[in-house]
């Protein structure tokens, strides 16, 4: 009996997000006949790809006790630079690398402010958000760069039925899962976010962990910038505004805890698709777009309250728990 209730609570904690996703999927399938069409599902995934890639970067940062508010702006800056060099004759590969490099450089500045100069991540990345957007607008003089030619293949192309951005998304999802579960760096992220001082006292190089986390975030953001511009077939200095919040929403709904130390790649992916499915079904069933915003906001509140409540339950049982009956004493 006890065993069963324990089993259930662990199961629920670990898999509830996937159950919600499955239930939502089934409900959506019945709610509108167009939902299940291949066309619709590939569309959802293609749209989700950019913000979900950002969400994986955010997940790693939140786990280690930080966050990135500059993701949307840096995405635009990276995309604009990438598009610019492509239009001026660089190869697609070079253009992609320029985008990624831009992402890395902006994030190095972020982490320099955070880890070296001890600025709070919220404020440091807020300042980067404004700076990167300004630079993107300055560089393009506020004009969109149009007609990208073959550049669009990355965002609009498909291999079989699978859109290329979705392949990137899958690769980044697997990469994030791998980093979090199978690398020393991943384990250190949890330690740093869980208790930074304990991590230092355990011999973990916290500076290195933070720098690496932001560099990886920079790669993801840069890549997302390329995919975004390529999908819309333009270099938009004013594009992707507020994308960081969509990404943060996916991470939060996916169970990443803002107090640090908790989060998974699978959870974030599921969180992103929950938001994606909801948006899609609301569009298909003609829910007013203003109403959609309200619902989306309410879901964030719900997810956070759920997270806090389940955490409180855990701490409460911690407080009063008799954890260890004394050992069987054999010694005299």
């Amino acid at each position, binding site marked *: 009996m*006890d065993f069963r*209730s*324990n089993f259930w609570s662990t199961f629920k904690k670990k898999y509830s997000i996937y159950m919600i996703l499955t239930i939502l999927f089934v409900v959506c399938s019945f709610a509108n006949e167009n939902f299940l069409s291949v066309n619709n599902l590939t569309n959802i995934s293609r749209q989700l790809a950019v913000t979900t890639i950002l969400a994986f970067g955010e997940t790693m940062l939140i786990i280690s006790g930080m966050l990135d508010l500059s993701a949307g702006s840096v995405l635009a800056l990276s995309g604009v630079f990438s598009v610019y060099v492509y239009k001026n004759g660089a190869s697609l590969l070079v253009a992609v690398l320029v985008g990624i490099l831009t992402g890395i450089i902006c994030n190095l500045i972020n982490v320099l402010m955070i880890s070296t100069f001890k600025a709070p991540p919220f404020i440091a990345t807020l300042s980067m958000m404004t700076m990167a957007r300004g630079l993107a607008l300055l560089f393009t003089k506020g004009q969109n760069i149009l007609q990208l030619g073959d550049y669009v293949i990355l965002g609009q192309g498909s291999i079989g039925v699978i859109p290329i951005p979705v392949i990137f998304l899958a690769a980044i999802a697997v990469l994030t899962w791998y980093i979090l*579960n*199978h*690398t*020393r760096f991943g*384990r*250190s992220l*949890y*330690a740093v976010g*869980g*208790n930074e*001082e*304990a*991590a*230092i*006292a*355990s*011999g*973990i*190089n916290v500076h290195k962990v933070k720098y690496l986390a932001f560099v990886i975030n920079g790669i993801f953001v840069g890549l997302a910038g390329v995919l975004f511009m390529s999908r819309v077939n333009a270099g938009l200095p004013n594009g992707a505004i507020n994308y960081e919040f969509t990404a943060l929403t996916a991470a939060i709904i996916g169970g990443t*805890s803002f*107090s640090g*130390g*908790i989060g998974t790649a699978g959870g974030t992916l599921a969180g992103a698709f929950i938001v994606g499915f909801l948006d899609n079904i609301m569009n298909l069933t003609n829910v007013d777009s203003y109403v959609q915003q309200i619902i989306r906001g309410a879901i964030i509140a719900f997810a956070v309250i759920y997270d806090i409540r389940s955490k409180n339950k*855990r*701490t409460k*049982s*911690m*407080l*009063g*728990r*008799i*954890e*260890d*009956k*004394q*050992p069987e*004493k054999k*010694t*005299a």
Partner: protein
Amino acid sequence: METNIKLRVSQIEKSFPGVKALDKIDFAVKKGTVHVLCGENGAGKSTLMKIINGIYQPDSGQIFIDEKPVKINNPMQAKNLGISMIFQELNYVPEMTVEENVFLGNLPVNKFGKVNWKEVRERTKALLEAENLPYSPTTLLKDLTVSDIQMLEIIKAVSNKSEIIIMDEPTSAITLKEVEKLFQKIRELKARGVSIIYISHKLDEIFQIADEITVFRDGTVVDSRPKDQLDIETVISLMVGRKLTNTYPKEEAPIGENLLEVENLNSTGVFYDVNFHVKKGEIVGFAGLVGAGRTEVMRALFGLDPITSGNVKIKGKKVNIKKVKDSIENGMVMLSEDRRRYGIIPMRSVKENTTISDLKKVFYRFRNHSNVERKIVSEMFKTLKVKTPTLETVIASLSGGNQQKVLLAKWMLRNPDILILDEPTRGIDVGAKYEIYKLMNGFVQEGKAVIMVSSELPELIGMCDRIYVMSKGTITGELKREEFSQELIMKYATGTLTSNEVK
């Protein structure tokens, strides 16, 4: 039934998922007495106190105050019934003033909700004067010592006209002198008719202050008697359900050559001219008053804080310790005094908390070898007798003693030569203490060494081969085992004697 019973609980039961925390508890506190509760961690003392304070609700049973049945749904109600609890971990806002703290949640307001600060100031002042406390109502809490804040909590309880004050391990973070002050206050409170429930692991202290003693074990009351009918030995055996033949199971280990040599270690403004050495097979103690610089020396040695100048040699080789990694790689590890702050990663599993010290052992060839990880952790837990439901259990849900053992396991994984233990037994129960002592013995018998910083002299005297005493940022004395005495250590510690005068 006697008429002078202030608080009585009858047949209290409480279960948490998977465990019965309290099983038909009967227990009574007389008016104007100090009633001590002892028992190992997890025996149920804290759960019962939380029920009396309204934090938990019992599954069944009844609480009586002045022999009238009461129901306590929350700490606010408990306060109104005259019950105050002073927690082991004092929670306070450092930037708050004394007066704000005293009237927290209870500020006098006029009918528009405006706080009457003048009244607050005057009443706080009167209270501080009445209790003989030297600070002003506007002093910030961050400028006070732990003991001062504790005193403040007590007078707060008094100002709320509490008739029952529960103190949970009140002496775990204060100095001997401050303990004396606390006891004086407790005696005063007693004289005024206040009943005090006092939870403590420190048995010598208990006998100084108790009128009655109740011993808990595994969620039941094993015995409850006036102090004079009990002695330390009996209490211990009641607590653990067996006789501990020796509180300090010191075993001799062969002493070898120098393992660690520290020469003229300085850190400007923190400590100066610190010289000591530790040999293979030794347990070396560091005694001193709180603030003498013992923890600071160890932190610097371990690479947590910078060193201004000085030499450190490990195994005769000069080492340059700039960060924790340097120290670990030279075979020296440290268990901090503040488990929560520098030790555990609370929301992660015991497994992850253990292997964090040596990730290379479980992450290699491009992946995490989880079967290897589980195996080395469970083997280490078996050796150290860590009790945890599963390896995936979140560390914060274990008792203090078991958390401490997990942290030891984490360092044992590195197979260190020098183990620095800063207050290793603070806040943990007798059984777990005993196991940690045994572990220290086993460790030094392998030709390794332990440095133990402790504020409990009996523990140092019981376990160490040599003791260094620190006072005001430097070492003032060194004692060999045959010279050990509490008096001598205290003389060095208070700076009334330095080794130069002796030799």
